[in-house]
């Protein structure tokens, strides 16, 4: 299963979402969730993947309760919770077993998504840890200057903006350096080679036909 190409996994997320939308039986939805859990175990994902899944489960319980409060129908509430679980879990599963770059490479090379947007996406991800530590630094600095997160909502928000503003401004000035460096490094040239990407093999065709079969089965049934 985990030898399949990134493209197949992208298709998988769509197909699972489709199944989740189409299915209304708690049993069938449980199977979808169960199979994904099994794939996580087989794929030997890290502990944090299970933690993220547990968070999702918690949210599914919340949805269940929300639904139940308004419409006291256990079956319907269960379906709601499981649908959400099935749809969101597939992303956790795929991201835990695939590098983001391989997914974007597949999107650019095989789905013809323009490279600028794949670049925008991975670059945003690249800067998340940097900005996270930067925001902590600013937060500490502002705390020293007496900004607090107390008071009424508006006040708290405005205080929080004192942390956001320097982050945004730094990002703006960084964008200039980045844009220059991108041009120096030939970004946007038509010559760009698409990079290595995994062509579909028999694993993929097996997996894809499996997905098609299940989908047809669901809709014909």
């Amino acid at each position: 299963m985990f030898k399949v190409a990134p493209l197949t996994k992208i298709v998988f997320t769509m197909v699972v979402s489709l199944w989740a939308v189409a299915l209304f039986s708690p049993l069938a939805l449980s199977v979808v969730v169960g199979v994904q859990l099994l794939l996580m175990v087989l794929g030997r994902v890290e502990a944090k993947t299970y933690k993220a899944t547990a968070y999702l489960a918690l949210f599914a319980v919340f949805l269940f309760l929300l639904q139940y409060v308004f419409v006291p129908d256990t079956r319907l509430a269960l379906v709601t919770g499981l649908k959400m679980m099935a749809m969101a879990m597939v992303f956790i599963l795929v991201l835990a077993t695939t590098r983001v770059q391989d997914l974007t490479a597949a999107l650019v090379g095989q789905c013809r998504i323009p490279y600028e947007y794949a670049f925008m996406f991975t670059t945003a991800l690249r800067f998340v840890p940097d900005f996270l530590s930067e925001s902590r630094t600013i937060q500490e600095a502002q705390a020293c200057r007496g900004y607090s997160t107390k008071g009424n909502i508006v006040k708290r928000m405005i205080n929080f903006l004192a942390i956001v503003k320097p982050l945004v401004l730094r990002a703006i000035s960084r964008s200039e350096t980045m844009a220059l460096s991108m041009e120096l490094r030939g970004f946007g040239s038509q010559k760009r080679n698409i990079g290595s990407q995994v062509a579909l093999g028999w694993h993929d065709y097996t997996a894809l036909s499996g997905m098609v079969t299940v989908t047809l089965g669901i809709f014909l049934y």
Partner: protein
Amino acid sequence: MEQKQDVVYYQAKGGKYRWVAVTALLLAIGAILKMVTPGVAGVTPNWTIAMYCIAINLIRPSLSQAVGIGLVAGAVNIPFSKSAFPYGNLVSELAGALICTLIVSAAIDIKIGKLNIRPAISGFLSTVCSGLVFTGILKIVLSLPLQAYLYGMLPVVFITGAINCLITQLLYFPAQRLFDANGGH
């Protein structure tokens, strides 16, 4: 070495991809703020939308660029958030980015007196539009009851819209001054 040289004026050819850089960095900020924002009475701004609204106000993209920006905005949070419905996010941010771009490129002045409130309006409408699309999809797909939608979700959508309206307006102008100070080392 003293020699008179003719001065040549060059057109700036750089910055072709600054829109990519700015959007990427602002979306990264949106993603981290989503993680670190203290929840205020259960209502938090939607930082991702606020950030792409600022980006779109700065760079004034074409509609096709807006489609890309919206999809990337929807995708950026997938690896971090515990989103209930990632494909819903892709669609809703796409709608939000398109609305924002339409407002930004609208030829009419959006002002109160001398104050340009285009950022605020675009921030509010994009957030509300994106919120309506997302909750609408969620309602249909998860077959949520109408009451839960009307009394649980819609108020949140509009409150978030109001907060984002304020944030976009407050952050846009300092950002814009810096953005336009091109090459002013």
